[in-house]
C-alpha cells in the first residue's frame, strides 16, 4: 500500500499539462494528473454496445481483465466478463471463435507460443516486439491495442542473501557458478526453449539440478533451490526479500501486455474503447503491477476490488 502511494505521488508530481477534453469514450488526460478530466465519461453513444472481455487464468490476468472491464463499463459500454478462461491457447481460441471479443495477452507469448516464432527470432525490445505482434494478429483479423508500460517477463532471481553470497548482479555473472547451484521453475520450464533449455544455451551455463514446482518462492525460501525463474511482476517481489538478475544477454523476450480485440468488435464499438484502454493502462508500470498483484496474492483481496481501488486512486472512476 505504501509503495503504491509513493508511486502515485511520483506520477502526480511529474505531470505536465493535462490533455484535451473527451473524445468518444473518455477523457484524454496526459501523464499522471488526477484532475477531473481523467474521469472516464459515460458516453451515450456507447450505450448498448456489447463487449465481452476475457482473461487467462492467473491473478495478474484477473486484475487486468477487471481494470479493462470496469473502465469500459464506466464509459457506457455493455461489458460482459469471461475471466479465467485458461491458458493462452484456450483464450486465443475463444477470441478467434468470437466467444470473447478481447483479452489481454503478452507480446512475447503471442510471438513464441501462438505464432511459433523461435525464441531467438523474437525482437528483443518492447516496441519492435509489439509491432511484430500487431502484424501477426492482423493475419487473424485481430487488432493488438497499444501496449502497457510494464512487462511481465522472466528473470532469474534469488533471495538477497544468496545474491550477495554469489556476488552476482547479472545472469552472465551467475553462469560460471551455475554448476554448484540448483535452479527451480514451473514443471514445463525444464523442457522449453524459451525457458531452461534456451537459457542454458544462451548463457553457456549448466546448472547442477532443476527442481520443478508451482511455488518458486517457497522452494527458494526453503533453500531447496538457490535460483529461480521469476516473473518481473510477481507479487512476492513486493516483499523486498528477493533480487532479480539482469538479463544482460537479452535472452528473455519482451512481455508487454496488449489487449487483443477482434477487428469485428473494434468496428462494432468504435475507437472510444481503445481510448479508454490506453488511458487506464498508462499508469501501469512494473512497480504498480507488482503492488496490484501483491494485493491479490499476498493480501488475498479480490481482483475486482483491487481493480476498482486502482481506478479510483488514479481518478478514472469515482
Amino acid at each position, binding site marked *: 500500500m505504501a509503495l503504491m502511494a509513493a508511486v502515485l505521488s511520483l506520477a502526480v508530481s511529474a505531470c505536465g499539462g493535462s490533455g484535451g477534453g473527451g473524445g468518444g469514450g473518455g477523457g484524454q488526460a496526459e501523464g499522471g494528473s488526477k484532475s477531473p478530466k481523467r474521469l472516464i465519461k459515460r458516453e451515450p453513444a456507447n450505450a448498448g454496445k456489447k463487449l465481452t472481455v476475457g482473461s487467462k487464468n492467473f491473478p495478474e490476468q484477473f486484475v487486468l481483465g477487471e481494470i479493462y472491464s470496469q473502465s469500459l463499463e464506466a464509459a457506457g459500454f455493455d461489458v460482459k466478463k469471461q475471466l479465467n478462461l485458461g491458458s493462452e491457447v484456450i483464450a486465443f481460441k475463444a477470441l*478467434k471463435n468470437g466467444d470473447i471479443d478481447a483479452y489481454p495477452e503478452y507480446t512475447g507469448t503471442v510471438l513464441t507460443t501462438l505464432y511459433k516464432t*523461435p525464441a531467438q527470432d523474437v525482437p528483443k525490445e518492447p516496441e519492435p516486439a509489439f509491432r511484430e505482434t500487431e502484424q501477426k494478429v492482423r493475419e487473424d483479423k485481430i487488432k493488438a491495442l497499444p501496449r502497457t508500460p510494464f512487462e511481465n517477463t522472466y528473470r532469474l532471481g534469488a533471495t538477497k542473501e544468496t545474491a550477495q553470497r554469489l556476488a552476482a548482479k547479472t545472469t552472465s555473472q551467475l553462469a560460471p557458478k551455475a554448476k554448484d547451484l540448483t535452479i527451480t521453475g514451473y*514443471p514445463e520450464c525444464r523442457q*522449453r526453449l*524459451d525457458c531452461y533449455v534456451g537459457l542454458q544455451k544462451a548463457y553457456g551455463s549448466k546448472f547442477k539440478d532443476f527442481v520443478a514446482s508451482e511455488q518458486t518462492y517457497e522452494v527458494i525460501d*526453503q533453500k*531447496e533451490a538457490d535460483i529461480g525463474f521469476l516473473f518481473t511482476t510477481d507479487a512476492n517481489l513486493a516483499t523486498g526479500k528477493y533480487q532479480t538478475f539482469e538479463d544482460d544477454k537479452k535472452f528473455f523476450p519482451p512481455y508487454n501486455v496488449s489487449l487483443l480485440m477482434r477487428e469485428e468488435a473494434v468496428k462494432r464499438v468504435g475507437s472510444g474503447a481503445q481510448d479508454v484502454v490506453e488511458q487506464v493502462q498508462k499508469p501501469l508500470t512494473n512497480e504498480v503491477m507488482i503492488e496490484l498483484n501483491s494485493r491479490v496474492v499476498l493480501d488475498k483481496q479480490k481482483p475486482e476490488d483491487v481493480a476498482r481501488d486502482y481506478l479510483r486512486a488514479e481518478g478514472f472512476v469515482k
Partner: protein
Amino acid sequence: MAQGGGDVSTPIASLFLDAIRFIFVPQESVTGGVQVGGIGEMSVLTANHMLLSAAAIAIACVIALPLGLWLGHIGKGEFVAVSVSNVGRAVPTLALIAFFISFVGIGFRNVLLALILLAIPPLLTNTYVGVRGVSPDAVDAARGMGMSETQIVRKVELPLATRSIFGGLQLSAVSVIATAILGPLASVDTLGTPIVSVNVYGQAGLLGAAFLVAALAILVYVLLTALQRAATPAGLKAAGPSLRDRLRRISSPSRPRSTEAT
C-alpha cells in the same frame, strides 16, 4: 515455422491415433528443442508412477489395516474411522502437496506423504466395516472354542472381512494411481508429466499419458480382484457373491454386509 496461432480442432480419431503413436515414437516437443515421448521415456514415467503408487498404498496398508482390524474387533472408534474417511477424501491432494513444500520439502517424500494420506481413508473405513460386519455368532463360537483375541482377529474376522478389505484396497489403489499425476508439481516425474506440461508434450502426449494411467488403474483393479478370489477362504467362495452383490460392492464398498457365508 510460423503458422496461424491457436489450435485447429482435430478430429477425435486422429487425436486418438496420435496419442498411441506418442507412447511408442519419440518426437520433437511442441515448443521445440527437445525430444519427448517414445517407449523409452514412457516406460520410465510409468515405472516411476507405479513405484510411487505402490509405495503409498503399501505404507497406507501397514497403517490402516492393523488399525482398522483392531478398532473393528473392539467395536470402538466408528466415529473416528468414518470421519477420517470423509475428511480424508475431502482434502484436495494438490493443496496437501503445496502445503508440504514448506515442511517436507520437495520431491518423492512430499508426494509420497500426500498420497499415503489419500490412500488411508478407504482402507481404514472398509477394514473397520468389514470386521464389524462379521457375524457375532462366529466370533462367540471362536471364543467358546478357546481362541485368543488375536487368533479371533486372524482366523475368523480377517478372512470374513476379506471382501470388504479388498474393496477398500481397490478404491485406494485407483485413487492413488489417478492422483499420482500430481507428481511433477513437486518435481517427481510420473505419467503426470505430459499432462502437467501439456504445452511441451502436446495434446497427443497428454492423451497418451492419460491412457497409460487409465490402463494402469484398470490393470491393478483386475489384479486385486484376482488376488481377492485367491485370498477368500474356500467356504466363502462356495457360497459366492451374487452378481447383484458384486455390483453393489463396486458402487458403495463401505456399506456393511449383514452376513457373509450362508
